[in-house]
């Protein structure tokens, strides 16, 4: 063995210990989680039986729905589960009171309500989505069985609330107290690692780098930005210290996005210079880039702790002065060597971007360092990140569910099937549960398969095992293998749906109620209804305008382009924060939706890059204009400001309707703006540190290079939309 030869001094005991810790860090986490799910489920079941709640299965199902590996997620889900359940119950009790005698009207209103909830679940992409799911799910869970016994509806609603609360209570206590895996720790870890990854990414690509790796890293940063935001909202429920830092964490995330956007702009500019023979400019820039390399070098791939961040901030403060000096020297050299105006502009733009990148890094380091304190002035950050899905996409999800419930409900009424209510109820529940994921059909199909096995196992346990059992411990022994299998499957991302289907629907059918009834015929009927409704729901989701097809990704691409329009004409308060986060959120969604089509994903990625470049430059332009001192040469009516406004209109036209004619018009508008701005006299020195117009010109020039880029998706839009025909 190689390892034992290399380390001969290690004793076998040591080996075993090392292997154990290795296991504890990887598979061990999964098994601890499985054990926690089992503990929580058994505790809930015992309490539900002891407290004589009528349906212990509802409480146990709650445990399975709420349980997550990280305790922060359990808290957040629990909170929204209670909220959603209360809303759903209130609505349902009211509906039963109004429509108890009119089953058709009742079904219609239920279908509309569940449809609205599904649309909400698809629209919000954070934990609020979960509240919507449960408002719809709980409503049907109470409402449909109650149509047969409206007189018992109120009491059964009260019992459901108690059962759900019990399940939530047990699962939160178990997940927080027994070997907790906190979201706060996961979040800290992700934050610390991210900066190292970013340093690596910058150093890797500063001198060229591979396009594929560059894109993959960018996609990674995008999904991390969205994921960290979800983690942040989960940690607020879990850790009081993280709650005190919530504003700073949001700010840090946003500053990181600004950082990646700025670096991306710099990288694109350098790439264009490289491909278009700007060697002299690149050479002049080299000493300035070295400055950045030296700062980031020590952090490459290393975690950045809070106290390291403070050191980094000090270092950056110092470097910034030196960088300024280097840039001045390099600019003097460029002025001597280069005659051409375009190349000088290239240099100025790149130098400005580099300088601002270091300033952004400094900001980021300061915010990161501020996390060490409980209270800090940087906490004051009010620009939230509210991830939302496409409105049309979510309305389609809602309409699909409404239609499905209506059709299934008609089938139930026409056939007078005794298990019809289960059939409709579960179709609604599944539609609500899967609506928030990018590929609902796949999850629904997995759940249907899980339910099928749940039916077999449930029937076998109920009629061959349970009759021989006596007492709660033996019941636990009989249930544990199924629960463990389901919990194990549900942590594996590829099999999550199987696990969920197995756990939820095994419990639904097989956990004995208080007042156990043995009725094989009824049980078979119920399980047939369950499997059928799941499969039908999966079919409907897959067939009726599935979100994984062209109509949605084309819409998302349009939304992505509209971000530029928003950057040009939106309200300026918090514009940068919303622009950065919404663009990434859209990208993240579109990437998930187009998961089966790498070519579409690449197209979307290119659009995101373009939108980020242009939008970011425009926001900088707007900020510059807002900060202008009160001088006659900066007045609103000056020709250069008019030229920038007309450029804005041309860009809006281009991004609403990409095409060669619009691109050329926008290009002409940008060039006109550059010329008029350069021709404007200014009372200060023509350095970009002191002169706003210099900075304005450099951003205009950046937009110009973006529009001229032969790689940009605007260029393929000119060849018609053939690429989207597929």
């Amino acid at each position: 063995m190689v390892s034992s030869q290399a380390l001969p001094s290690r004793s076998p005991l040591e080996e075993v210990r090392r292997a154990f810790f290795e296991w504890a860090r990887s598979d061990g986490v999964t098994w601890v989680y499985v054990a926690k799910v089992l503990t929580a489920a058994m505790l809930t079941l015992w309490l539900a039986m002891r407290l004589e709640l009528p349906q212990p299965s509802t409480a146990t199902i709650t445990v399975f729905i709420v349980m997550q590996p990280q305790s922060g997620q359990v808290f957040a889900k629990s909170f929204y589960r209670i909220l959603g359940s209360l809303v759903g119950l209130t609505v349902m009790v009211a509906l039963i009171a109004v429509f108890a005698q009119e089953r058709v009207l009742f079904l219609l209103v239920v279908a509309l309500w569940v449809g609205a909830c599904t649309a909400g679940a698809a629209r919000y992409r954070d934990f609020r989505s979960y509240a919507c799911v449960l408002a719809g799910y709980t409503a049907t869970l109470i409402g449909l069985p109650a149509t047969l016994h409206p007189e018992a509806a109120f009491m059964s609603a009260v019992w459901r609330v108690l059962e759900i609360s019990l399940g939530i209570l047990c699962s939160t206590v178990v997940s927080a107290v027994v070997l907790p895996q906190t979201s706060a720790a996961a979040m800290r870890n992700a934050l610390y690692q991210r900066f190292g990854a970013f340093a690596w990414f910058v150093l890797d690509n500063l001198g060229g780098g591979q396009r594929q790796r560059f894109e993959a890293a960018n996609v990674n940063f995008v999904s991390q930005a969205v994921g960290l935001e979800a983690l942040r909202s989960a940690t607020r429920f879990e850790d009081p210290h993280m709650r005190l830092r919530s504003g700073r964490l949001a700010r840090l995330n946003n500053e990181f996005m600004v950082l990646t956007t700025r670096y991306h702009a710099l990288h694109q500019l350098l790439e264009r210079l490289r491909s278009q023979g700007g060697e002299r400019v690149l050479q002049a820039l080299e000493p300035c880039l070295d400055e950045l390399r030296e700062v980031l070098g020590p952090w490459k791939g290393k975690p950045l702790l809070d106290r390291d961040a403070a050191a980094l901030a000090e270092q950056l403060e110092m470097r910034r002065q030196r960088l300024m000096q280097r840039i001045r020297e390099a600019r003097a050299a460029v002025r001597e060597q280069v005659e051409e105006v375009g190349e000088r502009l290239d240099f100025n733009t790149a130098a400005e971007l580099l300088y601002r990148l270091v300033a952004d890094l400094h900001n980021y380091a300061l915010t990161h360092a501020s996390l060490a304190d409980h209270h800090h002035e940087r906490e004051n950050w009010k620009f939230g990140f509210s991830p939302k899905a496409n409105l049309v996409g979510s309305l389609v999800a809602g309409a699909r569910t409404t239609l499905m419930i209506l059709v299934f409900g008609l089938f139930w009424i026409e056939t007078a099937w005794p298990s019809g209510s289960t059939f409709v109820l579960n179709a609604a529940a599944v539609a609500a549960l899967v609506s928030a994921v990018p590929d609902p059909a796949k999850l629904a199909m997995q759940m249907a398969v899980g339910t099928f096995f749940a039916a077999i196992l449930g029937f076998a346990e109920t009629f061959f095992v349970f009759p021989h059992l006596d007492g709660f411990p033996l019941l636990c022994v009989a249930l544990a293998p199924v629960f463990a299998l389901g919990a194990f499957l549900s942590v594996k991302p590829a099999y999550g749906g199987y696990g969920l289907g197995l756990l939820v629907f095994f419990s639904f059918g097989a956990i004995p109620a208080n007042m156990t009834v043995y009725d094989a015929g009824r049980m078979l009927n119920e399980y047939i209804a369950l499997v059928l409704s799941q499969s039908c729901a999966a079919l409907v989701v897959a067939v009726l305008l599935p979100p994984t097809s062209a109509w949605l990704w084309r819409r998302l691409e349009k939304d992505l382009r509209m971000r530029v329009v928003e950057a040009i004409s939106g309200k300026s308060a918090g514009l940068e924060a919303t622009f950065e986060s919404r663009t990434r959120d859209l990208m993240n969604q579109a990437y998930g939706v187009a998961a089966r089509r790498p070519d579409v994903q690449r197209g979307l990625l290119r659009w995101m890059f373009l939108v980020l470049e242009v939008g970011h430059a425009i926001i900088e332009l707007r900020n510059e204009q807002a900060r202008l001192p009160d001088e006659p040469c900066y007045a609103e009516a000056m020709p250069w400001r008019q030229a920038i406004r007309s450029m804005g209109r041309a860009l809006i036209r281009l991004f609403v309707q990409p095409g060669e004619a619009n691109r050329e018009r926008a290009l002409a508008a940008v060039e006109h703006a550059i010329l008029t701005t350069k021709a404007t006299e200014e009372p200060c020195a023509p350095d970009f540190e002191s002169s706003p117009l210099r900075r304005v010109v450099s951003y205009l020039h950046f937009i110009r290079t973006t529009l001229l880029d032969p790689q940009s998706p605007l260029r393929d839009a000119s060849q018609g939309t053939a690429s989207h025909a597929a």
Partner: protein
Amino acid sequence: MLLDDLPREIAFHGVYMPTLTALFVVAAVICWGIDRVFASIGLYRFTWHPALFRVCLFACLFGGLSLTVYR
């Protein structure tokens, strides 16, 4: 004392609930308030298992409150 004669059940919209249920909510609210204070003064830095500490705090509060009903 006022707390001495708390009834064991209270009526909520015609449903009789154990007073404990209401006390549970009261204890949760008090616990949340105390939790905020503890967090802002940084007490949780000195606890070994903050989550367990919070659960115990809640258990003490709830237990104490329920002593007013069942003695």
